[in-house]
């Protein structure tokens, strides 16, 4: 628990530290606040442990003559009282010499070279569509000093994290009737899918020429961070090839020809994979391996199993593993159980979960397996539409929030309409839910909600309401029963007999937010 603790030797000044993670290492960030007996003096969001301890030290040195060892002991005791086991010597080092460890690391690392990893794919039992990225870090020597070694491990993990992109690289090629080759490079957005944890990429190649185009090739690179669950196309005479590239699966779609105004539509449905970094520590080198593991649904939960094998004929000094779990998931249980110091589950504020493992003296061909039982992190879907007239005036703003309750009960959908100008016509919101889902309750009970089945898969629900007064809001809360995922799609809005005719702008993002949605009092955010 965060506490306000007096600076030793002062009864007037206090410091409070709120770390963003429960894991003590040089990446530990957090908020440091200074108080006197009257009130807060200042506070600083510190980027890492060095910034954090120096901020405490600088403030301490403002109040009293500098005293590094006392500050280090004070911080160690402070973190211990929060349940975080820190290291006095590392804190002291960071206070005394900011660039010392960094400098030592620069001196140790000689070079980094790419290596082949094909022989590891069967050993690690990875999926056939995924490759392993390998790099050899040559060192002058393995640091004897534990702190420098820990920092080296942390630095290599940080440097080799795979950033998950929100777009993919793509090339479209085709031949015009006059024989001229066309080559168009582009980025395609990775959009959200129809429910939690699903993503999709959807695009179309349209023949905008007056004559047919031939030898059409669409070349997409899907990063290994994503698992392709399914693809859809609108035409039959399309061929697909795939090869494993560096860091991405390369897909090539071939279509023999396309008549003017015809189009090829391709849609990928994706899920995120666990991103794994493995550090194999040998006598004078460290091998860095990036691999990827899918998360699979089993019964009511999700599971992932990862395997590592020491492929060498000699033992390794140590192996460090960092598994970054996709942000939509939370770890329920690990096998083996993560018990410090060998296994630590790091939960970084507003980021996600990483499982870290360390093993010493790994024999040749020895295997290390980890499995994770996962469930979704607390999530919600927030879709909103700003409705404008032909002159660009804002008329109404409409909102849909989906918040799952428990799996057995289903979920709640909140719809809100806010008038931004004087509106006199009836407003309706039309939305979709799976056909098997049932509206089990609504608040207010007299809100006009209509259901209509539109096929085997989905049914529509419509909320029809008189408009709220200007700058006022009205809302309806639906309790929906269903044992499958809700649909993450935006609704349609009609104002009187006016219908939506054009999407002027669309933004999609997924990020952590601090919220307090209480659907009994829906306007607390």
């Amino acid at each position, binding site marked *: 628990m965060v506490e306000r603790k007096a600076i030793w030797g002062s009864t007037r000044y206090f410091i409070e530290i709120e770390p963003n993670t429960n894991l003590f290492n040089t990446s530990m960030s957090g908020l440091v606040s200074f108080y006197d007996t009257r009130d807060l003096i200042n506070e600083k969001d510190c980027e890492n442990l060095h910034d954090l301890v120096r901020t405490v030290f600088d403030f301490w040195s403002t109040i009293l003559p500098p005293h590094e060892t006392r500050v280090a002991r004070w911080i160690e005791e402070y973190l211990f009282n929060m349940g975080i086991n820190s290291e006095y010597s590392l804190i002291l080092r960071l206070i005394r010499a900011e660039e010392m460890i960094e400098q030592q690391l620069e001196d140790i690392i000689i070079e980094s070279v790419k290596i082949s990893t094909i022989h590891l794919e069967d050993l690690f039992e990875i999926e056939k569509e995924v490759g392993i990225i390998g790099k050899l870090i040559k060192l002058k020597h393995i640091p004897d000093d534990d702190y420098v070694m820990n920092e080296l491990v942390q630095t290599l993990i940080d440097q080799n994290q795979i950033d998950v992109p929100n777009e993919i690289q793509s090339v479209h090629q085709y031949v015009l009737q006059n024989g001229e080759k066309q080559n168009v490079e582009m980025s395609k957005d990775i959009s959200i899918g129809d429910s939690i944890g699903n993503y999709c990429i959807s695009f179309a190649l349209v023949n905008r020429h007056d004559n047919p185009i031939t030898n059409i090739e669409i070349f997409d690179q899907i990063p290994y961070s994503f698992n392709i669950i399914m693809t859809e196309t609108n035409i039959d005479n399309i061929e697909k090839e795939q090869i494993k590239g560096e860091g991405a699966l390369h897909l090539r779609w071939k279509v023999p020809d396309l008549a003017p105004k015809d189009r090829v539509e391709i849609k990928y449905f994706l899920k995120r994979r666990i991103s794994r970094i493995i550090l194999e520590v040998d006598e004078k080198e460290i091998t860095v391996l990036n691999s990827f593991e899918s998360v699979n649904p089993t019964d009511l939960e999700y599971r992932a199993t990862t395997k590592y094998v020491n492929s060498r004929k000699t033992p390794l000094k140590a192996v460090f593993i960092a598994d970054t779990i996709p942000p939509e998931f939370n770890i329920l249980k690990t096998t083996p159980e993560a018990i410090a110091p060998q296994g630590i589950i790091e939960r970084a504020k507003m980021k996600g979960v990483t499982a870290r493992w360390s093993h010493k003296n790994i024999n040749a061909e020895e295997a290390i397996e980890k499995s994770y039982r996962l469930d979704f992190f607390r999530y919600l879907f927030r879709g909103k539409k700003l409705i404008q007239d032909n002159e660009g005036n804002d008329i109404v703003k409409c*909102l849909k929030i989906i918040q799952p309750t428990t799996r057995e009960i289903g979920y709640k959908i909140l719809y809100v309409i806010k008038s931004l100008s004087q509106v006199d016509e009836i407003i309706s919101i039309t939305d979709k839910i799976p056909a098997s889902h049932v509206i089990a309750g609504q608040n207010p009970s007299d809100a006009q909600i209509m259901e209509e089945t539109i096929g085997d898969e989905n049914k529509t629900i419509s909320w029809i309401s008189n408009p709220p007064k200007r700058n006022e809001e009205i809302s309806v809360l639906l309790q929906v029963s269903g044992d499958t995922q809700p649909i993450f799609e935006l609704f349609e809005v009609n104002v009187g007999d006016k219908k*939506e005719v054009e999407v002027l702008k669309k933004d999609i993002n997924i990020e952590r937010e601090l919220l*307090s949605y209480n659907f009994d009092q829906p306007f607390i955010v």
Partner: protein
Amino acid sequence: MSSDDAVQIIIKEANEILAKQTLDDFFTYIENKTINLEKEDKMLESAIIWHFFEETVERLGDAEFLAYALSKLISRYILMEELDKAKEIYEKSINENLDSFHLSTVRTIYERRSDTPTKREIVEISKKDVFGDFVPIPGAPNVYFETSAQARNYLLNQLPEGTFLMKVLNHKLNNIEEMDISTETLEEFEVISVQEIVRIE
């Protein structure tokens, strides 16, 4: 060796470092030497060295290091109970329009010691509404604060649960700073957000 000699040697060596190495190296040297002096309770000597550093970085036009030097000087004079000299440096920092985290901390400490608070006023509070948009709310308090952090703390204690955007006017520096505030009771969500602007006819 007298304290005076020690100071002169430090200044001489610091000048040599400045001539041959970077400004960062010069700063590191000064900081290490003053920490050692202060460990021996030689606050006055430390202040002399920081004055030397202040004059040097002022001549070189480095505002960041100048702000740090002035914050060091204000805090050293407060430690020595030399409030007149602390005031002189404090006013210089205001007149030079300097700002940094450390300077802001030290200024506040000085202001509370000397009872000359800077007026900071909350001029607008916006609350994140159910749509996820910030909407100005009535009720910005007619209260002055010494520090922005204090204004933030005040609001954390006064505001209902939620996320807010606050604009604070610093009367002395005549500028407005914006800050995000989330009350502690909020929970972390993975939010999938889709926004569209659509035209109807």
